[in-house]
């Protein structure tokens, strides 16, 4: 008999249907992956299993867990099951832990509740568990509070908490999406080992096919609240029988077609568009004690590089390596502590305000979060036109012409002009953000994780757009990303940053195929890759 058996599950919240006739089976000790894009209903399936659905939800169908019918179980039974027989790990490690309780107490809480053991015994076991997930007590005592830990460390605490009772079923909902690739690899390894060690069944929810291909035995593909395809992971991903699965696989390893050869630094005889010269950025720290000043944090430490016209330069590194700080300085939104940045012959550090306006016209920015990058109260016409502030005043109709031209570049029509940001989808908004960046006809666009918040199919389209625009308009990009696949597909060269320094640089193929620096090796190794993962599997048909 299987551990979990979901049959014909339908769910609606209020009047909105969320799931339609979902079927899913998890055997004891089996790892099942659920993949799908946003709105596919993968998280809601998990929450329904735990009976932690938002208020106003109504469900039909059947969820059998062991010999219990979850949908008709009362609170008391569910409370016995939760944390003891079934447990869950959530996506957002920054908010999923209680900020005012020590990690020791939070890990011990479930044991005290379910096993009735004493606090000291529970604490002792919590200590062992935390050590098991890589938080040894001599460096991370139980008395730590969540805010004293990084995102990756907090996710380890979450795992320790969920595995405390060795539940029969563990559900992990995008457990690594908020983390960078190296942390992702570490967390996935811990999960895989613990599940094997304790014979737990695991449902791993992810938007990333490569992660699922690495980790799971069975695969369930969901879209719009329905199961599209289900089967053994290797077989399903190699056969790609269902068109939607095939589309997901294609999109996740998409490489935009390029007409021009890559722009390589070694071959350049032209003057550089951007020249970053020995730039450092230090931040003062708050004093930790009365008697000694803390040393400043070196966010960026003596960095130099050149970026040529029409070149697409990737900037990669783990979170906190200083890549965003560097990007802000290139955009003159932050000033270096020392060093200089020259754009097209003019210093960004020493130029007067009047001259800066002209310089800013030559560089624009595209952000990660398409939801946050527009003022919700401005129409798109006004929002896209905002950088025109940098140019001499235009008449109203000239202004509109410029906006329309910019929209056309990114494949949108004049219908967008009078709409507000919330009327667009994420992908459309990212196009609008690019339109806004293009309006001053810049020569450089700094893109800070521009596709990482997008679903894979939209991501592929936006990557294509970036590539086409570069070839058509001769733009240079500084492309920040933690996703090596995206950088490899869209950039000519790459800079690898670690602890504020550039530790390796060169053409993307060279770096990613033969990384030399430790940081680059770490990144390459940790990056999930669909083909590599499938090649390693032995369950392919």
């Amino acid at each position, binding site marked *: 008999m299987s551990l979990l058996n979901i049959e014909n599950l339908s769910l609606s919240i209020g009047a909105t249907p969320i799931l339609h006739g979902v079927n899913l089976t998890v055997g004891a000790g089996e790892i099942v992956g659920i993949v799908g894009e946003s709105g596919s209903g993968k998280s809601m399936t998990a929450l329904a299993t735990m009976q932690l659905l938002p208020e106003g939800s109504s469900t039909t169908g059947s969820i059998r867990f062991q010999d219990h019918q979850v949908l008709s179980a009362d609170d008391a039974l569910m409370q016995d099951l*939760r944390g003891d027989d079934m447990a869950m790990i959530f996506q957002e490690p920054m908010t999923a832990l*209680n900020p005012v309780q020590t990690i020791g107490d939070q890990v011990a809480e479930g044991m005290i509740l379910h096993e009735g053991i004493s606090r000291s015994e529970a604490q002792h076991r919590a200590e062992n568990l935390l050590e098991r997930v890589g938080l040894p007590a001599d460096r991370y005592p139980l008395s730590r509070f969540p805010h004293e830990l990084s995102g990756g460390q907090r996710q380890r605490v979450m795992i320790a908490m969920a595995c405390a009772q060795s539940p029969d079923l563990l559900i992990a909902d995008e457990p690594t999406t908020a983390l960078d690739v190296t942390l992702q690899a570490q967390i996935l390894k811990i999960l895989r080992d613990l599940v094997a060690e304790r014979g737990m069944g695991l449902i791993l929810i992810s938007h990333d096919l490569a992660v699922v291909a690495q980790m799971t035995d069975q695969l369930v593909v969901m879209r719009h609240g329905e199961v599209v395809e289900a089967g053994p992971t290797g077989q399903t991903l190699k056969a790609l029988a269902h068109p939607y699965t095939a589309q997901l696989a294609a999109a996740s390893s998409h490489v935009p077609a390029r007409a021009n050869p890559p722009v390589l630094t070694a071959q350049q005889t032209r003057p550089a568009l951007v020249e970053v010269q020995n730039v450092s950025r230090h931040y003062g720290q708050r004093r930790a004690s009365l008697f000694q000043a803390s040393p400043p944090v070196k966010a960026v430490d003596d960095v130099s590089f050149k970026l040529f016209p029409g070149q697409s330069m990737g900037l990669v590194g783990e979170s906190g390596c200083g890549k965003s700080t560097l990007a802000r300085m290139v955009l003159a939104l932050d000033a270096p502590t020392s060093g200089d940045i020259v754009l097209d012959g003019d210093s960004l550090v020493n130029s007067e305000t009047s001259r800066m306006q002209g310089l800013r016209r030559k560089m624009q920015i595209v952000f990660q979060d398409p939801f946050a990058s527009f003022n919700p109260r401005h129409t798109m016409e006004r929002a896209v036109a905002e950088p025109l502030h940098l140019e001499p005043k235009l008449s109203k109709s000239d202004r509109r012409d410029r906006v329309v031209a910019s929209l056309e570049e990114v494949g949108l029509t004049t219908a967008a002009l009078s709409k507000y940001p919330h009327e667009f989808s994420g992908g459309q908004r990212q196009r609008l953000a690019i339109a806004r960046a293009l309006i001053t006809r810049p020569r450089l666009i700094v893109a800070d994780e521009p596709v990482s918040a997008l679903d894979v199919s939209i991501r592929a389209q936006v990557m294509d757009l970036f590539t086409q625009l570069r070839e058509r308009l001769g733009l240079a990009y500084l492309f920040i990303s933690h996703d090596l696949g995206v950088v490899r597909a869209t950039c000519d060269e790459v800079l690898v940053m670690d602890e504020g320094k550039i530790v390796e640089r060169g053409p993307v193929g060279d770096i990613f195929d033969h990384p030399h620096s430790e940081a680059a090796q770490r990144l390459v190794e940790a990056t999930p890759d669909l083909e590599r993962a499938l090649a390693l599997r032995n369950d392919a048909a």
Partner: protein
Amino acid sequence: MMIFILRKLAWALATLLVASLFVFAALEIIPGDPAEVMLGINATNEAVTALRESLGLNLPVHERYLAWISGLVVGDLGTSYTYAVPVSELVGERIVVSLPLALLALLLSTLVALPVGLYAAARRGGAMDTTIMAITQFGIAIPNFWFALLLVYVFAVWLQLVPSGGFPGWGEGVWPALRALILPAIALALPQAAILSRVTRSALLETMGEDYIRTARAKGLSRRATLWKHALRNALIPVITIMGLQFAYLLAGTIIIENVFYLPGLGRLVFQAISARDLIVVESVVILLVATIILINLLVDIAYTFVDPRLRANRA
């Protein structure tokens, strides 16, 4: 932790210093000579000169300020012109009425508000929650001194359960004194309790929507257990903030409400002083109350660090 408290203490002292400058300056800019103002238009020249002398008005401004502030530090508030006794003595007699009243009201409002807010939050959307919220909506709208008038009418005039005013003094024993303070304290406390219970409820409900509450539920805790073990402590942070602010209101309210109950507190003293133009008494009472409010704000800041570990100095 220690450094945090020391920093807060330093800021509190600096705030008090600036506030004292304000109070001093306010009475400096008085149109005309303070001595003449205090004595009124019928005063003789000799009397004015004598008063100027005794107030130290002949000294330059900064010396007068220094004398005043150093007097404050050692508890010498000067001599009241109208009462002809040291102001510290006057204030001392009155503060034992006003401060216990404000504290009693704070205690009462907290004791009522926290359970009510918790109860309403636990039964969100239910009939009791709706009723409680409607009552508190009224409670917020009621001025405390008007509520006091109604209480006097019902309990003192009509039912004759408590005295309608006056204060026997603590010398007569604790019970008669408390009996005289109970109606004023209720009048002060209930409108504040209405605000505080709404804040408690909404803080709890907001916390109950946080991700870590879902984590706790996933561990197998019941809704009630998550409320007690996880939501309550997190919700205390905004509740403490409001309590700190409320104390300032309660202190101001005390001064008003003493007039309803004819209590011989700082409020009565300051209004008598205003009509008698006894500026030294006004100045002293104001700075004393300001100091109390600053002290309470300091305590609130320190209380935060016990509730919220994120405010303690980083150990990492």
